């Protein structure tokens, strides 16, 4: 890896609670980028990078932070993704720079997680995505009367974050891209490389799971 920080100390972590890792300011260990930039080629690439990638770095960081669950990891992921984007910059000729950048960040985050947290990384395919039916619309029947929505509205930030963090990655990313980053369905389909229909069903399931988690906690 490019960056000279000790990652072993983080390998053993369970998926950390987002409120502890993503939002807490970090005191040290930040300033350690070491790449020499020796592999760079071309002024044009740099200029394209500046106009295509740089404006989306904050959003890239937010997504990486959510996907990895830690600010330290998110920094590594964003730096890694930026290098990947830079190397591939000549191949970008689309119009949606934001979706392109977020796609790279998302893929980088997953390779990073696989490499560093393989044991905890369970994919939806493993669970059998179709096994978890939507109960043919009867899920809503499990909801009590309207006062429940008041409970949802009163859920504290830590509870909500924990519920989102507990989602399987494939569900979580769709929820984040839609409800935090505000992407449209077809952009999410592009970023996550699945059909729009899959995006829709994952989003519905993700939301139901979070609602259930909040209700269970409040009950």
């Amino acid at each position, binding site marked *: 890896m490019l960056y000279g920080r000790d990652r072993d100390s983080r390998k053993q972590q369970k998926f950390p609670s987002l409120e502890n890792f993503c939002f807490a300011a970090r005191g040290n260990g930040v300033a350690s980028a070491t790449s020499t930039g020796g592999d760079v080629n071309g002024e044009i690439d740099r200029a394209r990078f500046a106009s295509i990638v740089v404006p989306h770095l904050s959003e890239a960081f937010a997504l990486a932070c959510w996907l990895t669950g830690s600010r330290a990891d998110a920094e590594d992921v964003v730096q890694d993704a930026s290098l990947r984007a830079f190397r591939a910059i000549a191949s970008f000729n689309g119009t949606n720079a934001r979706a392109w950048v977020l796609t790279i960040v998302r893929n980088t985050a997953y390779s990073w997680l696989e490499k560093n947290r393989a044991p905890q990384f369970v994919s939806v395919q493993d669970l059998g995505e179709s096994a978890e039916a939507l109960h043919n619309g009867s899920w809503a029947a499990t909801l009590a009367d309207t006062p429940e929505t008041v409970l949802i509205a009163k859920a504290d930030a830590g509870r909500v974050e924990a519920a989102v963090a507990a989602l399987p990655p494939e569900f979580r990313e769709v929820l984040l891209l839609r409800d935090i980053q505000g992407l449209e369905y077809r952009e999410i389909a592009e970023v996550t490389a699945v059909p729009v*229909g899959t995006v829709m069903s994952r989003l519905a399931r993700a939301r139901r799971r979070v609602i259930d988690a909040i209700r269970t906690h409040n009950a």
Partner: protein
Amino acid sequence: MTNVPGPDSGEARALLVHAYADGELDPANALAVGRQIAADPLLTAELVHTNALRRILRERLARPAPPPGLQSRIKRTVGLADARSRPSWRALAASLLLAVALASGSTWFVLRQGTHDRTTEAAVDAHVRGLMAARPTDIESGERHTVKPWFNGRIPQAPRVVNLTPEGFPLLGARIDVIGAAPIPTLVYGRRRHIISLSAVPDTARGEGAAAPRSLSGYNVVTWHDNGIGYRAVSDLAAPELEKFANLFRSAPAGQ
């Protein structure tokens, strides 16, 4: 809508509730689905809960902000110029000057500097917005006889437009930014594939001095005053090149 389960299944209807909440349906479908939801208490419950969840996700989950140095570090990694954040001798001298000005009760100077900085920040924001838009210009033209008249009728006074193509800074076009609720003309020049935004802000400050290049939000900025106009050149171009651009623009003949 593609790959949606059979249109009559409860699952498909539930998915459409979410698409409805997300504003992903075209008006005709939205109307039809809205009626379905109103007629079905289960779908209504799903919609109400989904909307409650979307609201708390938006309100409670703050977006994690990147650490301050990350952008500069990434730009350095790929070899993009970025001014140092370490204080230079010049900056130290400037702050000393400011301290002296404060001590002597010269608050006028200090207040002026404050206004000046907010305007420059706004110019940087406008530059970033230009980069993120489909095009950085409202009018795309390398011809100053096209660009200058375009401003007439849109803003009170068209800015000075200079042809710097021979020097390697071709005019790409222009746009109107809004800074402090006032429309401000901004010329857009190119340098290889880099973009330079040059905003011309009417300014009552006297003097014709230029400030040294500095970095704001990761972009290099050169400011100068000329004939009642405060100029802000913003770019990701290396500081010396941006300074060269500023000098060329300032020294271009008046009739140009």
